[in-house]
């Protein structure tokens, strides 16, 4: 990035977050989560998978900040690694949802006949509550990080498709698209050179919401024992395992629960800030997922 571009990014950031201290706090929290995820091996005092039968269900204290679980694994270390999983699930779902949903929406708006069919399919999928759809899909597939990401991505691809469908329909009728067609631009060029760049900022907002909701979905799937493999240290799995010991070891519920809530809430705040700063034409299209 050139220094100039950096300055510009910084200025844009300031414009978006100026006077929004809640959203700024949210952003700060997310930066912490990302740092934790990236530097997890350097931060953690214990191996998150290491079992220590002697230290089972230790209360939070100097040795174990967040206490330990029923295998004596360090909850703090697991939480830090959980941040990794949160980021992987979030980013993965965003990529899948935007790729599948975005393409479906754009193509449906552009090729009206194919679009009428595709959007009908989307409508049918959207008739299911998101969690139910994810449950159904996960029962067919085996538990893995990859499958969880795919399923959550597909679930949110439907809303993304709807939103991009609407926005592409609007953009398609812009005069500059007519002008591009008159210049000889073909379908691919119109879609990806002329329409897509105008969708970048709304896509970014949409991505922030998907990221947040993917956390909830993943936690719910983990909790129901249908998400990530049980040994993976994710916040959802930790929450799920805490169930049995909740009266004896409430910290097992408290820490991952708080982490999930804080992260989702932060992501939503940032998403709201982004949404308010984008092109007013699209403001009404994006209402969250």
């Amino acid at each position, binding site marked *: 990035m050139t220094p100039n571009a950096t300055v510009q990014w910084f200025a844009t950031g300031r414009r978006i977050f100026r006077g929004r201290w809640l959203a700024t706090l949210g952003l700060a929290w997310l930066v912490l989560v990302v740092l934790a995820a990236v530097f997890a091996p350097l931060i953690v005092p214990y191996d998150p998978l290491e079992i220590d039968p002697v230290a089972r269900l230790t209360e939070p204290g100097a040795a174990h900040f967040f206490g330990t679980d029923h295998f004596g694994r360090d909850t703090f270390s697991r939480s830090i690694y959980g941040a990794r999983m949160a980021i992987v699930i979030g980013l993965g779902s965003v990529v899948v949802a935007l790729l599948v949903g975005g393409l479906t929406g754009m193509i449906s708006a552009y090729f009206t006949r194919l679009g009428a069919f595709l959007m009908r399919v989307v409508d049918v999928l959207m008739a299911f509550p998101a969690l139910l759809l994810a449950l159904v899909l996960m029962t067919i597939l085996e538990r893995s990080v990859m499958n969880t990401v795919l399923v959550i991505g597909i679930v949110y691809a439907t809303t993304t498709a709807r939103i991009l469908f609407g926005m592409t329909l609007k953009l398609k009728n*812009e*005069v*500059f698209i*007519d*002008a*591009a*067609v*008159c*210049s*000889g*631009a*073909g379908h691919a*060029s119109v879609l990806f*050179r*002329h329409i897509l*760049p*105008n969708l970048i900022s709304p896509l970014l907002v949409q991505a922030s919401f998907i990221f947040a909701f993917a956390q909830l979905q993943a936690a719910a799937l983990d909790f129901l024992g249908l998400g990530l493999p049980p040994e993976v240290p994710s916040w959802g799995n930790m929450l799920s395992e805490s169930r049995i010991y909740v009266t004896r070891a409430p910290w097992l519920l408290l820490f991952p629960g708080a982490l999930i809530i804080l992260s989702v809430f932060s992501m939503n705040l940032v998403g709201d800030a982004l949404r308010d700063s984008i092109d007013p034409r699209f403001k009404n299209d994006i209402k969250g997922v």
Partner: protein
Amino acid sequence: MTTDAERPLLRVRDLKTHFTLKAGGLFSGTRKVLKAVDGVSFDLAPGEVLGIVGESGCGKSTVGRTLTRLEDATGGTAEFDGQEMLSLSKADFRPLRREIQMIFQDPFASLNPRLTIEQTLSEPVRIHGLETTREAIRERIARTLTQVGLDPKVMSRHPHEFSGGQRQRIGIARVMIVEPKLVIADEAVSALDVSIQAQVLNLIKDLQTESGISMLFISHDLGVVRHICDRVAVMYLGRIVETAPRATLFSAPSHPYTKLLLASIPRIRPGRVAAEDRGEPASAAAPPPGCPFHPRCGLATDICRSERPLPVDLGNGQFSACHHAGNQQGEAA
């Protein structure tokens, strides 16, 4: 400019563009046909500028958009340089896009806000393979920008950095850069302020004279049309009601509608005989039978209410689609 021996560059016959509208209540779902263009015929000679005037909604833009294949024609033919082009597939039409270009009304909406001027102007050059190297493309862009009165250095900027007049120059550059044979200008100066409008009009006129391009100049402003056109066609509810060379149209209009239009323009210098209150045009979705102008026409008779008038040749290139054309010269509309 036109000689009879010359083959017209564009020959439009009985052009029809109908839109299907969903009409009626929430549940009836009946379909209504809106005949935006309903039987338009004209010739355009090489190097000629033909004006199309008329009130909003009469189908001027739709004629232009159909001829650039932005809308699908419902019927009729359009021969460009001897080749029928409305029946071509979109793919077969693409090479013709270089020859037929369009200038749009809104200088703010017609440029992609995300692309630099260079990106916008290089697109047609690359697509039509007019230049191959990056240097050659840039050079061509620079030349065209100079031609339309802009500094080539502005190439790297985005549209929002320009004023309305400058943007319209960029729109004109996008058209001129491919050296077209036919330019369709749809209200090309209507969105501009008077002092800027005059600059852009002069530019269009200069470019047209230098390059000998044929032009279809669509406008609702008769002053502008008089300034730039060789011949004028007046449209009313999807049809051409009068065609005449410029001088004739303004000094000896024949069709009552043309007269009404001319009489309605507010004049800076006093002396206009004020137009009578003649109501507003009927909706294009439900045009009156017979002569579509008859509800507003002071000369309407029974035949006007039942039969659609065909164009009558009044000599010297003047045609008027009026039952009483030719025998009411000089009367006020």
